[in-house]
């Protein structure tokens, strides 16, 4: 079992991390490349940059939106979930020790105090479960939801809850078994990141700008489509 655990948090983790980083970089590069091409082709390059940046910032740090946006419960849970999944994996002492060991550095200094890390972990699990319940119970969100919308939340809940209970004395399963689930789920989340909606981690800012930019059509796009479909640029209506 120990060998399995070593494999999961060694080679598989490194592989998953490389897939996630390269995959996200690819998504970002594709997005930027597409945006740059669209901008280059657009005759009208006058975009409301300030307004677009303000809207992006408003949603990237959605403190104000917590109180003004609709579906407040969903928004609140989602906000907590985001704080948890960003802060805990990065600043947990055990994770920092692992990173330190791997990189040969002492990275303990920014670690969260244990009690705060535990609290955040539990809140994150609660938020993930709350979001699953809210999604399944919402007349609006339920018909929109795909399998992956539930699965990713479940995955986060599994990662955080197994991480929390692994070394507790009351853990009914063995430390190793719990950690295997924890690390396997974490590796899976990393592997899925570029191929699911988690890709917004990388492309969110470009995405926020894409709507406005896409309205800036190339000057002759309509004619080129007509030519491709009808063989002539000017056609009767």
């Amino acid at each position, binding site marked *: 079992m120990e060998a399995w655990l070593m494999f999961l948090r060694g080679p598989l983790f490194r592989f998953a991390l490389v897939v996630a980083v390269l995959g996200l970089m690819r998504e970002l590069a594709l997005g930027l490349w597409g945006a740059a*091409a669209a901008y280059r082709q657009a*005759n009208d390059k006058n975009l409301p940059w300030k307004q677009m940046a303000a809207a992006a910032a408003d949603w990237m740090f959605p403190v104000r939106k917590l109180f003004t946006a609709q579906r407040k419960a969903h928004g609140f849970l989602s906000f907590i979930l985001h704080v948890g999944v960003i802060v805990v994996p990065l600043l947990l002492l055990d994770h920092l020790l692992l990173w330190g060991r791997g990189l040969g550095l002492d990275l303990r200094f920014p670690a969260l105090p244990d009690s705060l890390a535990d609290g955040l972990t539990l809140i994150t699990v609660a938020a993930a479960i709350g979001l699953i319940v809210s999604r399944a119970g919402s007349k609006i969100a339920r018909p929109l939801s795909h399998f992956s919308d539930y699965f990713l939340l479940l995955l986060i809940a599994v990662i955080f809850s197994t991480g929390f209970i692994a070394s507790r004395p009351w853990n009914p399963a063995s430390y190793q078994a719990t950690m295997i689930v924890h690390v396997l789920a974490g590796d899976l989340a990393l592997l899925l990141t570029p191929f699911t909606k988690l890709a917004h981690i990388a492309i969110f800012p470009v*995405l926020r700008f*894409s709507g406005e930019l896409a309205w800036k059509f190339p*000057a002759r*796009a309509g004619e080129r489509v007509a030519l491709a*479909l009808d063989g002539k640029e000017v056609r009767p209506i």
Partner: protein
Amino acid sequence: MDTETAKKVVEEKIRIAPAEIEKKKQYAYYLDAQPKGDLVGRFLEAFAAVLEHTNYRFAIDMMSKVSTHCGRCATACPVYQVTGEDRDIPCNRSGLLLDVYRRHFTLNGWLKAKVLGDGGITEGDIDRMADDFYRCTACRRCNIFCPMGVDHGLITHLGRYILSEIGIIPKALLVATREQIDGFTGNTSAIPVPALKDTLEFLEEELMEKFNVPIKFPIDQEGAEYVFFPAVSDYLLEADTLMGNAAVMHATRGSWTIGTLDYDGINYGLFYSDYVLGRVVRMELTQTRKLKGKKIFVGECGHATRSAWFGATYNENGNLPVVNCMEYAYEQLRAGKLKLRPDVVTEKITYHDPCNIARAGKIVHQPREVIKSFCKNFIDMVPNGRLNYCCGGGGGTVSIDELHEFRMMIAGKKKADQMRETGAELVITPCANCKKQVEELIAFYELPMQKTGLHDQILRAIVIEG
């Protein structure tokens, strides 16, 4: 009818509306001719051509990857808020097209289809898109509420564009556009030049009677600063708006003209086709250049203004500024050239923001400042400005008579509620499409108010010096 009774009557009507609408025909609107051939193949071919030659691909590619499916768009949508139907959730509707994109134009979708044996898009999917994309008024309110910034208005526009390329276009929009681009009169209301001139003469006589001063509608005057493009239907329906326009130009000594080559600001291309959008915009540009005009001057019309803004997209020979008549009136008021009496208009007034000029926040405060300068009894709707609700006739639906029940009972209900709440006697709605819709809503819901244009009220309050 009191408010409560009116609400009950309307709610009863809404309950039966969707079934009634669906019984009538294949789509909720008429087509000019049934599209022929292999619809699925043609749709995919058109989609591929659009993806290759336009700027949509990168945007819908990202949108298709990271939609959160949170449903906030539905809370913003005036259609969904009334029907509560899954099909009217903006994210669901956009999903119709994004699913086709994922399935047929991405590697992931191709692989997934191989594994799961998904046969791909069917004629049924096309029928659903044909119906559902015309249940969206393209007001883009949901865009403001989407955490990811998915622009469902853009996707509706794209969906309609692809459908138009295989011949699925509401007949009402197509016939009007055909007359505008290929027809004898060159405008959507088929008003020939002699009839236009007669109308303008009549309006000049009316102005003379009112002010005892000759106020002109200049025709084909070369070198005028502003070349005027109202919604051409104003020449048939909105005499007071046009007289208000002329009075403002007269009072401010504005240099303007109406061209007889093109005098129609309406551009249904904004609602269904980039090809049409471009051609109609170029007609405006050609007319303006021919008259050596310096600016495109748009009358009271939201979509005419927004489509004229596309001049910067289609004008490959330098830019021509676009000025909406309300922006002009506001600037002239600030400069002290436009004088409005504060004691003539005493009614309680509210203002409806046309989505096409308000959603981006471009023309929001200007008309309000003008109104407040002559009206002491102004009340705003809640919400308003960038967050306004669509009148329910946006996206070309107001011109499609077959969608009347949908516009009244569903898409416009939120606006009717808003208007009723204000208790106003006059609703200023500076847009040809919104005017028609708001007038019909007032009649349908028996609201104790009248629709009017901003320039209609300016006409009442303006000071004309001999």
